[in-house]
């Protein structure tokens, strides 16, 4: 039960972190692409962003995900990082508890 809970929390945290990374790289890509018809990609090729001219002269934007692998990698990395931090924190808490108990005796 404890591990189920911990993995759900870990998944949630890494999901939010991944979304933050995706949105941040999306915004930076958006501001670096200014020429019409030039395809820009961000986040190691995961996202693409392409402004192109419509027949009536307006500019249309095409955005999307061209390669999911870097995003999955970000998710996995943040999950591993979270698990590492959580387990180290757990150890430290146990250690503190033990020290306090040793003090009482």
């Amino acid at each position, binding site marked *: 039960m404890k591990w189920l809970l911990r993995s*759900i929390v870990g998944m949630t945290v890494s999901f*939010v972190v991944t*979304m*933050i990374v995706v*949105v941040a790289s999306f915004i930076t890509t958006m*501001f670096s692409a200014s020429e019409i018809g030039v395809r820009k990609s961000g986040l190691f090729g995961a996202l693409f962003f392409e402004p192109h001219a419509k027949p009536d002269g307006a500019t249309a934007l095409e955005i*999307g995900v061209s390669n999911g692998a870097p995003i999955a990698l970000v998710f996995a990395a943040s999950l591993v990082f979270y698990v590492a931090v959580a387990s180290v924190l757990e150890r430290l808490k146990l250690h503190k508890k033990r020290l306090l108990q040793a003090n009482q005796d």
Partner: protein
Amino acid sequence: MRFKSVVLLSRLFWLFIVRRVLGRGLLASPAARLSTIFLLVLAFAGFNVLSYVVIRQYLGGTGLLEPVLQVANASVGFWVLIAYTLIRVLFMKADELLKLSFNLPVTNKERTMAFALFESSLVLLMTVFVFGAFSISTVLIEGPDYIPRVLASIWFPAISTYLLLSLGYYLLERALQALRIARLRGLIVPMVLAFGLAVAFPQTNEQSSQIAESYVLGRDYFAPALLYAKLQEAVGLWLSILILLATSAAVIPAIVAIAPRNYVPMRRFFVFLPSRLADRTFGVYILVLFRSFETMVAISFIIIYSVFAWLEHLVFPPYVLALITFQGVYAFSNSEPLRRMVTYPGRTVANYLRLVGSQGVLLMVVGIPVITISLSQGITFEACLPVLGLCLSNILISTLVGIAFPPEKGNPFTVIMGVLLTVIVVMIVALGLNVFNFDPMISAGIFTALNMLVVFYSILGMRRMERIARHEVVA
């Protein structure tokens, strides 16, 4: 009136709020506190960088910054009004905070003034958040010569508008006391402020388009809102500072004189719906929700908006219904005594379902007439469905916010922090999912899964709080 006790008292309010905010709910744990501060600083920094990049990209070196600054100047009043409304409405519930000072040797007037000082520092903080990014990036792009201009066109008008708003508010409070309806000010003040916003918004728009037009035509445009900027341009910064000081010196004594001398407590409940409903536990939850003052405020806003939309033939899906779903923030803490009164409060899942179910009933009761009005105006039922989905998901999310960041009387900030954090996370997730260009059905599936996650965390939080109350775990 003694100035020293005013300052002391407002410092007491600050200390109380800061300690209260940092010691409750999720924020009680140092890790959560650090990451919250980090996220807030990150959001402000991101806001700054974004505004710098946008301004440099679109306005840098074009000379267009001048009219943009004028437009910003014209909209300062509106933004200060928004900040003022938010703080006022938030602190309507904050009688507890004032009660802190009832056993101290201060007069009512000193108490009111101390609260005004406390409130003005909050409004200032909010204005810094709204206009800080714009000011910083403008000065970074145009150089330090722009500092006096930014001061005269954004910060001086903000101060004067705030002072005038306070004066207006105390005049209103005096009028309510004279009419003997001051106990209802929790209902009347938000309405007056909302009316003010409804009037100020089109006016600000109109002024902005006039400024743009006169810039294109090369005319000189003047409005009372631009007074400080014009003075700074014509005579210099020092004179506009002098004028600012002079107007403040005129308005502040007026505020002190007009502030009410006696304290009238506020109404908290409206007793309606038969008490027989309390036979069942679910009925009690319904009574708690329906009789609370905030629900009444939200419902009256919705009614006013619907009638307005009906008369003006506004064809717009009933997004106003979302207002009522924000009651979820108070759902958990308002019904907390119900779970404390009995030896065994029932299963957590059942309690959660009662919490959410009572809000669902409220949504249905208010939603059916509102949606009928929208349908009669020619909005299709398919257009109303996303609104319902939004409302349901909002009920779940705001209930979670109310559990993770429990609001208390006298401390509206814990909730605001929670709502702010939630809004940031929800926006980021929505934007991120938007990038993926999923099929609408898949998106709906993902959002449903996320809502299930919200339900899971809410039940988890409630269970944890119950166990803390039974001394099974350490808080």
